[in-house]
């Protein structure tokens, strides 16, 4: 498979406003919906008084828990079926009106009566009530290999530290929206989702209807980062119920403020870490995580999971526990687990290097894990040491001793580095390719493009396989009328679509080859198929001059074009012969004003090894986007709950700081191409890698600059005093 720099397939459509996002769908007779929110964070909804609201102009419909009683009980419907209040701002009803302003005004005019109970609004109020979940994602929550207690007792050096990370919110540019209607017993749902088929399945479950009667569309997404998933479903269901009740299309779009409470968050963590060393080698690691979840659902990031893999160490104990609070529910957020987890582990490694008096990079090389020690099997490929080498060289890490702690203008300079990693996984996937008589190619797969380049990747894989230029390719995705594709999460879409598209194009190639070689009238008649290649819109002989255009080959058999489907089944990653993992080494230079304690990232070098890179242009963009998210987590982003009311404070971009252009450092991205024989196409996911490691690299650089070790995120002015 070739790697090619191809500009984004849908780029022109997006920058010219022609890409229509699902929330922009505006069918005839559309009603606009708004949510009524709970003013308390714990209690029981007693009643809704809508009498004043119903007198307002344009107020046709109120949808409440009573309407949702017809839905099948499940985790996805509990918040709209059960009247318990779990967090401040929890919707207690939906109103639909002729205009958005009328809907919002009606929502405000509804009097909500709630029997309030004492709320628990801060995780640290209830650390004694922490409990252990069974699983963290697809990993066990607690693991133990060897005997870390004993090894820590025998270690020459023990580094024992606590680290904390704040709540973050995802905040894609495009807020969640749904435009839905019913066509008889069938439902049409235009919505922002990272999983159209998952959304269809949950609608089918809740409304007890056949999946085939539901069409879910998400053809463009303005970002997802993990929040366009299950927490959106209850509010989407209410919109669907409003549509059924009124027999009109209904649109619900969340406000930016609601994006802080209704669709998930990165959970806060407190992490206790102990590292034991003998002779500069890790002999023990204990990583203990306490994190927040809500009172209505359970979620734990795989925060300590990466500690099981990253370093060679015979004695490793990890544990995750959760504390329930009356705050919004967490979900995975870009680099879930690995971002907070590597912050702790890679900060502690830096602290250890300092205590051991050796270079942090050397300490990591000394403790490189040459196989997956947790599962006792080889890596499918692992170029982490190459990442360290290339990154250090491009960054100029060797100058650390002389250049860091120098002053440039008002800035004291600090260098820091850290490692990032994320598993290479894939899902079941089906894809269809259709070569038309005019030589154009249609590629279809029911996955989504969050804005990261799935359109381009789908088109590119198919175009390359058939030797066609990209401008001959049309890509369709984001529609459950298409073959089932993977959900967009876990950095695995490209790895999943590749084998499916590859299988489909292989079938098509076989048929086309057969048409050409079996027809004596073709210039390729009688040629051995293994001698033929697809290139430049032709099938050509590799050894001679013979060749025929694809359109001409096709015309020999049919005037209707040809199509083929490919499929990859679900993978049981635990049963594979080798563990797939992507890696990166992040090097940063920061400046800290030693008297005013402002922190600015000056430059970042990320060297990543994540299998075969299909499209370096898109990969670079995704790495940089990931790193920017990581800078936000490291220095800016923090969602704060008011302890008294349980309300999220400052629900706007005025208060919730994210990096702006002026905060952007110079980025240098190095991609180390791997030839991974274990993975289809050698493809690993890259979406998470940029967003982990950078937090610790920044914290380590702050320490390098001003000798201040900050063990919390975000790192703010007051932490550098």
């Amino acid at each position, binding site marked *: 498979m070739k790697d090619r720099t191809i500009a984004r397939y849908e780029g022109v459509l997006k920058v010219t406003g022609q890409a229509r996002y699902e929330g922009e769908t505006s069918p005839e007779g559309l009603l606009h919906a708004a949510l009524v929110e709970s*003013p308390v964070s714990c209690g029981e909804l007693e009643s809704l008084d809508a009498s004043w609201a119903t007198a*307002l*102009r344009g107020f046709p419909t109120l949808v409440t828990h009573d309407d949702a009683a017809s839905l099948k009980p499940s985790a996805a419907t509990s918040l709209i079926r059960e009247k318990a209040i779990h967090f*401040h701002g929890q919707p207690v009803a939906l109103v639909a009106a002729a205009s958005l*302003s*009328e809907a*919002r*005004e009606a929502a*405000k005019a509804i009097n909500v009566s709630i029997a309030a109970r004492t709320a628990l609004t801060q995780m640290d109020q209830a650390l004694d009530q922490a409990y252990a979940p069974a699983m963290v994602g697809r990993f066990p929550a607690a693991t133990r290999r060897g005997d870390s207690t004993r090894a820590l007792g025998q270690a020459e050096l023990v580094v024992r530290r606590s680290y904390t990370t704040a709540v973050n919110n995802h905040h894609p540019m495009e807020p969640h929206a749904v435009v839905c209607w019913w066509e008889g017993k069938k439902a049409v749902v235009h919505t922002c989702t990272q999983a159209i088929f998952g959304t269809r399945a949950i609608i089918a479950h809740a409304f007890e209807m056949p999946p085939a009667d539901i069409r879910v569309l998400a053809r463009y997404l303005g970002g997802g980062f993990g929040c366009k998933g299950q927490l959106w479903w209850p509010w989407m269901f209410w919109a669907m119920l409003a549509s059924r009740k009124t027999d009109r299309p209904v649109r619900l779009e969340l406000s930016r*403020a609601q994006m802080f409470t209704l669709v998930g968050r990165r959970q806060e963590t407190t992490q206790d870490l102990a590292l034991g060393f003998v002779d500069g080698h890790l002999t023990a690691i204990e990583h203990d995580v306490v994190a927040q979840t809500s009172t209505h659902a359970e979620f734990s990031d795989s925060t300590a999971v990466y500690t099981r893999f990253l370093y060679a160490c015979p004695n490793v104990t990890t544990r995750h526990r959760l504390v329930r609070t009356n705050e919004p529910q967490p979900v995975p957020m870009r680099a879930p687990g690995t971002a907070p987890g590597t912050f702790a582990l890679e900060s502690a490694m830096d602290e250890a290097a300092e205590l051991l008096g050796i270079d942090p990079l050397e300490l990591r090389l000394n403790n490189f894990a040459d196989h997956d020690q947790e599962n006792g099997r080889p890596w499918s490929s692992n170029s982490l040491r190459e990442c360290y080498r290339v990154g250090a060289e491009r960054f100029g890490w060797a100058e650390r001793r002389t250049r860091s702690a120098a002053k440039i203008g*008002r800035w004291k300079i600090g260098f820091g580095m850290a490692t990032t990693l994320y598993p290479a996984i894939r899902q079941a996937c089906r894809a269809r390719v259709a070569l038309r008589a005019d030589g154009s190619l249609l590629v279809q797969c029911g996955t989504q493009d969050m804005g990261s380049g799935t359109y381009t990747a789908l088109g590119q894989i198919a175009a390359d396989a058939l030797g066609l230029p990209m401008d001959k390719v049309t890509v369709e995705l984001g529609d459950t009328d298409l073959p089932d594709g993977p959900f967009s999460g876990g950095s695995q879409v490209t790895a999943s679509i590749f084998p499916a598209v590859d299988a489909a194009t292989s079938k098509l190639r076989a048929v086309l080859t057969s048409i050409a070689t079996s027809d004596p009238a073709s210039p390729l008649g009688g040629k051995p198929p293994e001698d033929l290649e697809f290139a430049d819109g032709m099938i050509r002989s590799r050894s001679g001059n013979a060749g025929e255009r694809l359109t001409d080959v096709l015309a020999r058999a049919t005037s209707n074009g040809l199509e083929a489907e490919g499929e990859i089944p679900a993978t049981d990653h635990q049963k594979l012969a080798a563990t797939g993992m992507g890696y990166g080494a992040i090097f940063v230079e920061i400046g800290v004003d030693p*008297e*005013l*304690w*402002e922190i*600015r990232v000056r430059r970042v070098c990320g060297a990543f090894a994540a299998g075969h890179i299909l499209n370096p242009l898109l990969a670079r963009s995704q790495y940089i986007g990931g790193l920017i998210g990581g800078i936000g987590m490291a*220095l*800016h982003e923090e969602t*704060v709950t*008011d*302890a*008294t*009311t349980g*309300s999220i*404070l*400052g*629900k*706007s971009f*005025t*208060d919730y*700081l994210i*990096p*702006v*252009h*002026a*905060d952007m450092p110079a980025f240098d991205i190095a991609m180390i191409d791997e030839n991974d024989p274990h993975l289809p196409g050698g493809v690993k996911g890259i979406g998470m890698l940029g967003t982990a490691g950078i937090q610790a690299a920044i914290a380590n650089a702050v320490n390098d600059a001003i000798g201040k070790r900050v063990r919390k995120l975000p790192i*703010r*002015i*007051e932490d550098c*005093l």
Partner: protein
Amino acid sequence: MSSASFNYVRATELTDALSQGKRPGAAYLAGGTDLLQLWKASLTAPQDVIDISRLPLADITRAGDRLVIGAMARLSDVAAHPEVKAGHPLICDAILASASGQVRNLATAGGNLLQRTRCPYFSDAGLACNKRDPGSGCGARDGENRHAVLFGGSSGCVATHASDLAVALAALDAEIAISSASGERQLALSDLYPLPGETTAPDSSLRPGEMITAIRIVGAERFAPHSTYLKIRDRASFEFAVVSVAAALRIEDGVIAEARLAAGGVASLPWRLGRSEAALIGRAPTEQAFAAAGELAIEGARPLEGNAFKIPLLRNAVIRALQTAGDQS
């Protein structure tokens, strides 16, 4: 009419605007960068919105030692104006540290002085805030108060004033011209902003229907060679000050003849640092003199749980601003 609706009137004459503005529930709309957000967040619900952005009050003029900035002048125009750049660089510095380019293109000088606080308890209608709902209490005092005041707070309000421009103008002893249907009056800028009470915390001392028509700065060009605006924040742009300092010196024969210092992000108004100023007069612009001014700047600071870091930050910011101003020539 619904509460989300309002009557919109575009005023073309000042007298017309003032007579409409005296109606209860009327609000003046200039750049709209603050009012529109407040309205969208249901924090204000004017019945009548009087658009004054087209009133002929946008001129920036200099006559003798007097600079007059029309209240409707856009911030970006003020900062780009040759007379302001040459004679009052402190004003340019403060404006260019404010908001973003897009916001500065819309926001007006007068409106900037009257922007509401950015305290997160003010900006959420569900939370206690005496500034928004007199008598409802102050959620920030015992809640999240990283951004709260060090000086002049009360049990009823600890919110800071958000304007950078006001801090620079306070240092330059600016005056504002105010008009209403019943006449005109002048006010020292520092008198525009009252300290909070126990159950009320008005943002300004403007009376209903009054409008700022101009900002006047007299005799401030003498500070042009030695002035600076220092703004400290968590990110490099588009954020309100954690702490800011406007410093202006007149140095004569190697001695500080006059000093002006005002701090932002530490009080409900631009906080003049009078003791620091007095201590600088007659001294050479040395590290020792600046350090002493820094120490005096934080006298009387009363921190809350989350904002004690602003005390050393303010001290160091005063020192840094004085170093920067003192180094210029």
